[in-house]
């Protein structure tokens, strides 16, 4: 396609709230989902992405453009990813990881997953529950039993009042 004309091909992506985005094919095919569509010849018109909203898609496209502009240097790519994700809150990260999953972009999925994991790292159960709004549906007896079973994982972790 692009190779034949010698000019970069641009794809049009449509979010589920009907926003349209132009993106270079070379960047967009970081998504295996989009790449498959391009290879199957379904990318002529507008590519509808039914599971991604406009705000998230804009962010994903920023990432696609940014990362594809970096030559094959894993360290530079990693530092770009770190910087790209550094100011994102959890809601945005959750949207991004779902989008990355839907678009089949393993590098973005890994980076966002690692970022979420980083937030949980070395934190107490109570802290993680509060941070992510996780409701504790264990009975006190059940919770005590689970804690007893994995007692060693509580050593050296910050304690807090409600746990």
């Amino acid at each position, binding site marked *: 396609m692009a190779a034949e004309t010698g000019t970069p091909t641009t794809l049009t992506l449509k979010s589920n709230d009907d926003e349209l985005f132009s993106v270079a094919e070379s960047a967009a095919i970081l998504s295996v989902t989009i790449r498959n569509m391009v290879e199957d010849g379904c990318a002529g018109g507008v590519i509808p992405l039914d599971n991604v909203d406009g705000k998230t898609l804009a962010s994903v496209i920023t990432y696609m453009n940014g990362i594809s502009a970096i030559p094959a240097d894993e360290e530079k790519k990693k530092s770009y990813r770190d910087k790209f994700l550094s100011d994102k809150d959890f809601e945005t990260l959750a949207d991004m990881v779902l989008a990355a999953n839907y678009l089949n972009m393993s590098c973005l999925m890994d980076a966002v997953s690692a970022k979420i994991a980083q937030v949980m790292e070395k934190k107490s159960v109570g802290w993680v529950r509060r941070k*992510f709004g996780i409701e504790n549906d264990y009975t006190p007896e059940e919770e005590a039993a689970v804690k007893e079973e994995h007692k060693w994982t509580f050593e050296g972790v910050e304690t807090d009042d409600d746990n």
Partner: protein
Amino acid sequence: MDRISELPKHILQRILYFLSQKDAVRTSVLSKSWSYIWCTRPNLVSSYNDSKENKQEFLTTVEQNLQRYCDQRMCLEEFSLLIILDNHEYVSLLEKWIPTLKNMGVKKFRLSIYWKYSRQLPSVVFEAESLQDLHMEGFTLDQTTIGRNVLSKHLKRLLLVKVEIEDGVFQKIISSCPLIETLSLESCERLRNIKVNNLLRLKKFHFSSTPKEECCIEIYPASLEIINIGHADVSFPKGAEFQNLKSLFLNHVILTSFDNFSSCKFPSLVNLCISHCDGLDESTEESHLFLDAPNLNTFVYHGWFNLSFSIATTSREWSSTLYLLMRDDPSLWLLKLRKLLESLSRSKISLTIFQFHINAEDIFIENRDL
């Protein structure tokens, strides 16, 4: 339900993949929906240090976990095992597990094992194609260990401590594992000649031995970022350019050729530490060491200062820390010192002189911004 718990299971498994075993297991207490996610994440990390149970129980658990992934056909990408082995029966468990990992399609296998005495490493370890990281302490690595081919071509990190290994076996391993990025050899006292020239991705090289052993090291992958060598004869290739080298630490090292070292270029070198490398000028009367390091930031020299050296750098802010031991003929020595200080005059110099023979007391001079 909350946003994070609502994420698809395979995404939660991926998030937990990036946590330590301890952090991952602890998520089971968050809520009921989290109780078993950790034990389905695509990595299995078993570290004996982390657990309080006895070793037999620990190994049984590892075996059961492996079996569980296998039986339920769950994806297992990584398997890490860290353990002190002190029983031949335990060592032979490796012979059972490693083929299982292969069958399960594990991509990254990390193994950290300790053995108090010399015992042959089971040959199955170097037959593991997925082996990425091997940290081994104790053990013997001989021809029978790698009798058949070394298949672990994806090995990135190789750390050998107190391993009985001879040159031929070592060369065979590193020539079969071209992707090695970190190579650390500590107290492997049978090594006599090490050539690491063919590891084109080597970034970190660490070697240390004891004064009584003599090992010659030839070093030159341009990819190297850190070189740290203690107690060895080291040869640098003539005119080589160490494009990526940021740190060079030489401790009790004998440079086999001054001219070769002086002809090398170190465009990225930031830290240089030369400590007790004093046997180096025995061959020639007046040895001069020249260092081409335009980006040097920290230079530390510790020793008898029986050579002269100069550093060419375009750095604006850099520091030199010198601990010089002085003996005999102070007039010549001071002349040499003057030359050295001139060549370092653009750096912040901190100078400590230890004087012997003439005065038992140490003389301390601090000299800033000369």
